[in-house]
């Protein structure tokens, strides 16, 4: 049986959802170990076991949470040398990808990033990656061992296997000079009441809204529907809304029951983050906008006129 590792990312002591998703596939590929580093690791072991880790390798050194990437790379590199896993799966998240990148360079193995799936084929591993902005899917075979694959959030459904893991304390192996890029402060920007990636309804706005002063139309509809507000990168880069709201390749991946895109053209880098939604509604002034070709319902019209009326209609109906 191949030896599969999952890097269990901890964010301020809490296991990330994306890490748990990886186990659904990992379990089908071989014997699964999880590696959890930093404060909270021991606590996380229970959940990791329940999702299919047979062993959880843990170390609670605070340096893993305090310093960017290097301590975790040191520890993983030492563990890889001892244990020789065949495949290491990481979530494609900002923190994990930095660790994975350093590790792949140190081991000289390279990696496959931004994958949506990984399979065992002829004794090796093949990962599926969106290509050419998502219009195509490329299959890449990893040539080195361990194979390192980074997988997009929401690629697999979390599923409980009801198992229990053996918890194994490992040495931190942090090098002398690896406590360098230090996180000295963490600041939270006003977050929505409903978490974007968990919301059942997402209303997103794009450049078509004309300016930041009109974005309240998006928030008002999201609030009326009990959902979360999202955005395209164009308006995040322009500073209208915080990055936390960005949906797409470089933002969040969402799969709500209903996704409403207002004033968003539907560039591949946006749609890769929302095309798994059950129902897609698009409001766009331009009949030829690509988003209208993938929406279940496309309305050709002015979002600035439609959004407020829609919010009224939703409120009226809910008020009944």
């Amino acid at each position, binding site marked *: 049986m191949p030896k599969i590792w999952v890097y269990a990312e901890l964010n301020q002591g809490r296991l990330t959802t994306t890490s748990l998703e990886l186990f659904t596939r990992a379990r089908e590929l071989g014997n699964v170990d999880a590696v959890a580093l930093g404060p909270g690791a021991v606590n996380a072991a229970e959940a990791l076991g329940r999702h299919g880790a047979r062993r959880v390798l843990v170390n609670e050194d605070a340096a893993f949470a305090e310093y960017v990437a290097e301590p975790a790379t040191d520890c993983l590199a030492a563990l890889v040398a001892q244990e020789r896993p065949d495949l290491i799966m990481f979530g494609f998240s900002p923190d994990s990808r930095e660790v994975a990148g350093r590790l792949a*360079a140190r081991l000289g193995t390279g990696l496959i*990033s931004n994958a949506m799936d990984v399979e065992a084929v002829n004794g090796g591993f093949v990962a599926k990656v969106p290509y*050419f902005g998502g219009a*195509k899917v490329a299959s890449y075979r990893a040539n080195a061992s361990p194979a390192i694959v980074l997988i997009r959030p929401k690629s697999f459904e979390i599923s409980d296997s009801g198992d229990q893991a053996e918890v194994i304390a490992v040495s931190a192996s942090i090098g002398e000079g690896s406590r360098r890029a230090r996180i000295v402060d963490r600041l939270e*920007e006003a977050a929505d009441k409903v978490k974007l990636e968990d919301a059942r309804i997402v209303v997103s706005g794009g450049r078509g809204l004309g300016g930041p002063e009109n974005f309240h139309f998006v928030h008002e509809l999201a609030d009326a529907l009990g959902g979360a507000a999202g955005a395209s990168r164009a308006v995040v880069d322009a500073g209208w809304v915080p990055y936390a709201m960005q949906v797409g390749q470089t933002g969040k991946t969402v799969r709500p029951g209903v996704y409403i895109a207002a004033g968003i053209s539907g560039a591949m880098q946006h749609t890769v983050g929302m095309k798994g939604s059950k129902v897609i509604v698009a409001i766009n002034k331009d009949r030829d906008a690509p988003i209208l070709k*993938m929406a279940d319902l*496309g309305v050709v019209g*002015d979002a600035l006129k439609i959004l407020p009326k829609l919010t009224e209609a939703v409120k009226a109906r809910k008020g009944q």
Partner: protein
Amino acid sequence: MKIVVTVKQVPDPNSSQGLDPDNTVARDREVVLDPGDECGIEMGLQLKEAHGGEVVLVSMGPERARDAIRKGLSMGADRGILITDDHLAGADALLTARVLAAAIEPESPELVICATESYDGSTGMVPPMLAELLGLPQLTFAKHVEIADGRVTVHRQTEEGYQVVEAATPSLVTVTAGIAEPRYASLKGIMAARSKEVKLFTFTDLGIEQGEPSETVESIIDAEARKSGEVVEDDGAIGVAKIMAVLQAAKVV
């Protein structure tokens, strides 16, 4: 202070996209300096203006990537290094990072600036690999960068907000697209760029052995596309009515 900015030439994000029949990116596509790297250059120039020193652009790419470097030089960077080689087609992230590291190492910069990710579908793996190979700490996703007393401080964009991350120089920083509005090259800048040095290296010059690629493409197929649904022209009422019907069918209102 010596600052190296890595720059990549990419297919123009604004030109119509095309793939050759063999699924490689059409060669005759317009190419431009990566817009993310333009922000990196701008950041480098602002730091140079505040602290003095030199901004060196380093790129790996075909001969014509010289145009990308030239553009950065006309914005105000001081000189460029282009690594070009017959073997660079299909270079993966690790080989790219090894090549860039070999070219940057002798420069001993205090700061290396990269974009968080490139515009042509790559996923930001080169910078952490480069940091590892150069033995530098990495301060990533920066939406704000400051240098004082041999320390670099960045605001690192996160899903919740941002972190303040600090390290001593030398360090590698990756910048987000929102960090700084790239300046336009002035006519004077464009003229001056013509006489600025762009050094050319091959893999052999840098002692790089290509080795086996870390991954092999097995197949490329069309992605499953969503079926297009109904499209209606709003007349002031039908848009809202249709959307309400969808929301009701989905049982969310």
